[in-house]
């Protein structure tokens, strides 16, 4: 048996405030697509979104849907609230995920749908899920069996 979903306003965790550079990213996530800037000059992906390519300084990007698959690059267990918005959220796992599309393409995320004290290890395969947060969705990652 599961309880009724809590109304969105009861989630006190902070939400992103999109700007002209990042709007595609959060709108994509809300539509359950993980979009990453890909430079039209050097074809490198980059995250976080930026005003220019930090690899080749190009100015033009394709906003590319990526697979949402990656590997756990690092993680930490936060078991004390560090922000008033997370008092009811502890314990939680903060992680860096390296996307399969490009070595070194890191996203910061939580690892969800897992017990925070369960055994995580760097290199584990993970996949994106989209978590409702207020009026939008934010990309999150969960463990997956498939390492493809």
């Amino acid at each position: 048996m599961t309880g009724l979903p809590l109304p969105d306003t009861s989630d006190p965790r902070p939400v992103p405030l999109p700007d002209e550079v990042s709007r595609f990213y959060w709108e994509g996530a809300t539509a359950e697509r993980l979009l990453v800037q890909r430079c039209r000059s050097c074809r490198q992906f980059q995250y976080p979104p930026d005003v220019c390519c930090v690899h080749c300084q190009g100015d033009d990007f394709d906003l590319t849907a990526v697979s949402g698959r990656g590997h756990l690059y690092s993680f930490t267990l936060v078991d004390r609230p560090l922000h008033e918005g997370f008092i009811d959220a502890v314990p939680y796992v903060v992680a860096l995920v390296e996307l399969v599309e490009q070595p070194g393409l890191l996203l910061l995320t939580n690892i969800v749908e897992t017990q925070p004290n369960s055994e995580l290890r760097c290199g584990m395969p993970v996949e994106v899920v989209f978590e409702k947060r207020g009026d939008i969705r934010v990309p999150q990652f969960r463990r997956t069996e498939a390492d493809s």
Partner: protein
Amino acid sequence: MTSLTRDVAIVGVGFSPFARAGEPNPRALTLTAVRDALADAGLRGKDIEGIFEYKFGPESPGAQDVARMIGSPDLAAFADIMPTNPSGLGGALAAVMAVASGTCETALTFRCLTRASGSTGGVAGGPREVGGRGQYLTPYGALGGILVEMALKKQRWMAEYGRPESDFGHIAVNARRWAALNPRACLREPITMDDYLGSRAIAAPLRLLDCDYPVNGAVATIVTTAERARDLRQQPVLIDAMTYGTGPAPDWTFHPDYLYGGTLGCANRLWQRASVTLDDVDLAQLYDGFTSVTISWIEALGACGRGEFADWVGDGSRLGPGGDFPMNTGGGQLAEGRLHGISLLNEAVQQLRGTCAERQVPDAQVALVASGLYQQCATMLLTAA
């Protein structure tokens, strides 16, 4: 051709008392440290023409405020340096450049830190909607100052090299070995590796004893030309070489060189410029805001190869009193107290003067200082004149 390069020496070091408790007045703490440095050098406030502050929290007085307090007649060079600089050494680097370039003759740098500053603990507030860089971090609870970032770094260090946690413990244990010999230090009780491995998790795998020790205090340093230094009270300490480093595409969270950041470039440039080599270094003061930072410096500076710290450090005794790589001889920020690295500089100066009593490294002639972490790095190589 103009002359924009002069030899520079450190001629004065000063400290306030360091304390864990109390409600300090940051201006009074700063004045205490600055007066101590002036007295050490045999100078007066009117001799100070340049002031460089490393600004971290709002409570620290600025360069102009200090000029008022010490009676500096007219600052010829000054800056309040942002916390994106290579920690407390950033002010010293700027002071040296101001003197070396002839912009001023004698310059002061200082760092005042109190426990009120920064996100040193507790629960932060903040807006519910987060823009800028924070939009990629804060919605995931990656906040609380630096702790989450440092936990992620430590985890990756362990994964990348199969590094045992005892590696980090050697840095923590060493700090207390030296602090026991330093009357200024706040944590003078020795600890064992078991104490380290049993210390509580702050954000696992980051442990309490991986973190520096917040205190209230101030530290000040005075530099002038090597020529002028000869007429002053102390045996001058010369700056042989110094470097900054960020690594490519510098970023606090998403740095392409995740483990070493700017340390490798910093170290490579230093050994290209220095008149001595690592073999000539008698003692090292390496930033220890968190234990992983110190290991990144040790490996980057070439004491051992990347990922080889565990074999190199052995039982850890080589870092301690009587060891062949005496490191953080005042106890560092882990044990002397967190002064953002400028106390590491002052300790190096006192070692080269030979005034460190019980903890003196015998016949110390060359000292290596490294400050900051990951994408905000700097070094300074010092020699006894």
